[in-house]
């Protein structure tokens, strides 16, 4: 059973739909006990970093997530805002402490040209590194996924599994042990996205 963490931010149903389509059982839950005890977690979400961490802290989910992910070493996939929350801190409207599982910060895109569009919306290529090969198996080195975001993850190279070019190279997927993150939406990236979700789940099922 895969648990999709519900902390009242955004579109949980899309992830559940995609997992169901692939034949995996999942539940959407905001219950700390269920989350701490789950075999596999997905942390989706869109919207504000500050609001998200506030919800996670107020509902007692931070302890539950730490228990499941850090103590029990259960695999977790953060998607979009969910990936950003893995960082040490966010910088939207001042500094907000994140889950602090992957050292790094989340920053707004800054371009010298003020006319470059934000948010970064649409399909763009992810270039998977050697470290991202388990995930991208059967997909090739450069694959299109759907993005919609204005902030991006900044961290040491050793955590980076994929990069994308939007007027600058930015980190589009990360990994540290059992913790993975994707800035794009695999659940909205058609066949490539479904394949990637499947790879994530299978890799971790085999290692569980």
């Amino acid at each position, binding site marked *: 059973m895969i648990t999709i963490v519900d902390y009242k931010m955004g579109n949980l*149903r899309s992830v559940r739909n995609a997992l169901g389509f692939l034949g995996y059982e999942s539940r959407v839950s905001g219950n700390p006990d269920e989350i701490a005890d789950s075999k596999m977690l997905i942390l989706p979400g869109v919207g504000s970093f500050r609001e998200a961490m506030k919800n996670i802290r107020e509902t007692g989910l931070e302890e539950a997530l730490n228990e499941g992910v850090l103590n029990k070493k259960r695999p977790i996939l953060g998607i979009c805002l969910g990936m950003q929350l893995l960082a040490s801190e966010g910088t939207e409207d001042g500094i907000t402490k994140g889950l602090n599982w992957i050292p790094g910060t989340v920053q707004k895109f800054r371009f010298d040209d003020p006319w470059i569009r934000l948010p970064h919306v649409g399909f763009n290529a992810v270039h998977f590194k050697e470290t991202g090969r388990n995930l991208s198996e059967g997909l090739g080195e450069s694959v299109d996924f759907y993005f919609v975001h204005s902030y991006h993850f900044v961290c040491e190279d050793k955590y980076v599994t994929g990069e994308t070019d939007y007027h600058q190279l930015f980190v589009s997927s990360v990994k540290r042990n059992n913790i993975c993150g994707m800035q794009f939406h695999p659940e*909205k*990236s058609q066949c490539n996205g479904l394949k990637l979700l499947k790879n994530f789940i299978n890799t971790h099922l085999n290692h569980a």
Partner: protein
Amino acid sequence: MGLAKRIIPCLDVDAGRVVKGINFINIRDAGDPVEIAQRYDEQGADELAFLDITASSDARDTLIHVVEEVASQVFIPLTVGGGIRQMTDIRRLLNAGADKVSINTAAVFNPDFVNQASEHFGSQCIVVAIDAKQTQIDPPRWEVFTHGGRKRTGLDALEWAHNMVKRGAGELLLTSMDRDGTRNGFDLTLTRTLSEAVNVPVIASGGVGNLQHLVDGILLGKADAVLAASIFHFGEYTIQQAKAAMAAQGIEVRL
């Protein structure tokens, strides 16, 4: 490659059926929304837009079910618009599986609604739809219209676009009411003028009759995405053909 330009087929939905009108009248049945959505997904559409043109409020629940059903079969972004007035309307659609909502009339009546919606749900899911009609030739001026092009608001479309971006719109869906349904191509002057005036993505809409119109919307209109309905609904062109035509003229698309 970099960020691909998007092709977005639009499904106008009335009481659970896809329809298409000419200048918003003479509505013609084009089929079942779930089947059509699946067909466009298979053809490689980058996103889908649903516009609810149902007049009565009880029939609105039909659209929620359509969105639920499409979202369980089709794994590309879905934008839903039409009749969105309150925060609860947005919440319901997002819960049903929509990724973005497009707000039109409600923004005109109450611009603060756009602030509230983008603060609460995030700018990335708030698309503001602007229906513009040219009201002056020289210098060109376009005004915002509501109610499917019937009501004039007196608002200048460019000023309105700036206002909406400032209030948190993540994208603008620009429809030329002069061109919509005519198949004569986008209003390229309007599209380019507005695209060059804002720094959020602009989706061009209204008037597509052939594949070159889509190309022109990107190359001459400077749009980030192109939206079309009838050229795809009746099987005249496929999304692949549209993408091939765009790629052949140097536009980055997802193939």
